[in-house]
């Protein structure tokens, strides 16, 4: 019996490890909404906010004001959800932040922006989506 478990254990571990390794970085057991928002983030937001959501996007080389680090749990926790939504929809200037953050309402729907706010709270691990 013990012998069998000893045999089985490495196999189970190897299988688990293989499954974990096989997942792309953005995938996982996420909800379809989170996955969809992550894809939109990659398309539109990551150019400035970074492929790792850390505010270090490829475009920051040209920015006089650095973009927000969405992985910053403490910094993001102080950001009200409605302010996030307004910044995405109307641009940084609408919430007294940098005008370098443009308004995305021409590209994203209201629902996608709501979902993005949920996604940001997921990324920063700083609150439950409401």
């Amino acid at each position: 019996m013990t012998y069998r478990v000893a045999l089985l254990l490495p196999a189970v571990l190897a299988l688990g490890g293989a499954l974990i390794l096989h997942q792309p970085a953005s995938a996982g057991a996420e909800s379809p909404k989170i996955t969809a928002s992550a894809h939109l983030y990659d398309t539109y937001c990551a150019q400035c906010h970074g492929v790792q959501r850390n505010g270090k996007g490829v475009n920051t080389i040209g920015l006089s004001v650095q973009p927000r680090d969405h992985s910053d749990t403490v910094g993001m926790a102080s950001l009200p959800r409605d302010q996030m939504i307004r910044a995405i929809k109307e641009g940084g200037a609408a919430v007294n932040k940098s005008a370098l953050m443009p308004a995305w309402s021409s590209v994203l729907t209201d629902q996608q922006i709501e979902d993005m706010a949920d996604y940001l709270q997921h990324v920063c691990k700083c609150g439950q989506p409401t």
Partner: protein
Amino acid sequence: MRLPLLFAASGAIAALTFAARPAPAEPAAATGAIADIPASCASCHALTKPETPTVERLWTRKGPDLWYAGDKFNREWLVSWLQNPAPIRPGGVMWFKHAKPGEPRDTIDTASIEKHPAVDAATATKLADALLHLKGEGLIVEGEFKPEGVNLTMGQMSFGKLRGCVSCHQDKPGQGGVSGPQLHDAGKRLKPDYVLAYTRDPQKFDHFIWMPRLTLSDPDLQRLTGYIASLGKENK
């Protein structure tokens, strides 16, 4: 008894045939021009307006759209570029695919960006002439940009700090963001009326493109266009 069935069947066939047709109303000149463009170009570039633009299309297309090339490019530049195609987009066609995380910031893996094939002078001229026939319906208004009285210094300020175009576009080699096409030779490359129309509403050209529509006044658009149209012209 069988007649209604037959009608229904032929109706369905007609509907399917109609649905399978390509996008309607390509101007005759454009249709003729497309026939002059090799299939190898069309394998990467959309030569007709996509019927259903999607985010996914932007991730899978291999080259920028050319269905409005005639609205966009200056002939002289196009003929020359096709013979010596230097990269226009520092981040590639879709920047994310070439981005890699890093410190102090993410970078573009330039080695992974595919190079555009070059053609000889005769082919370049023929291709340019065909491409310049490709125009969108009402995308640009000819003569909308008024070069007289444009303040280039104000335009440069708009491009930089005020409107943040430089976040994504380079106005000098190596200076500015990399997710959008470089603009340091835009004066040679692009028609000013196109620059103005695209800047005013990028979503009119592609709803899902990652350049958002800013709220810009007409004077703003004029001075931005004036600045962009001046770039790269000093060597002429």
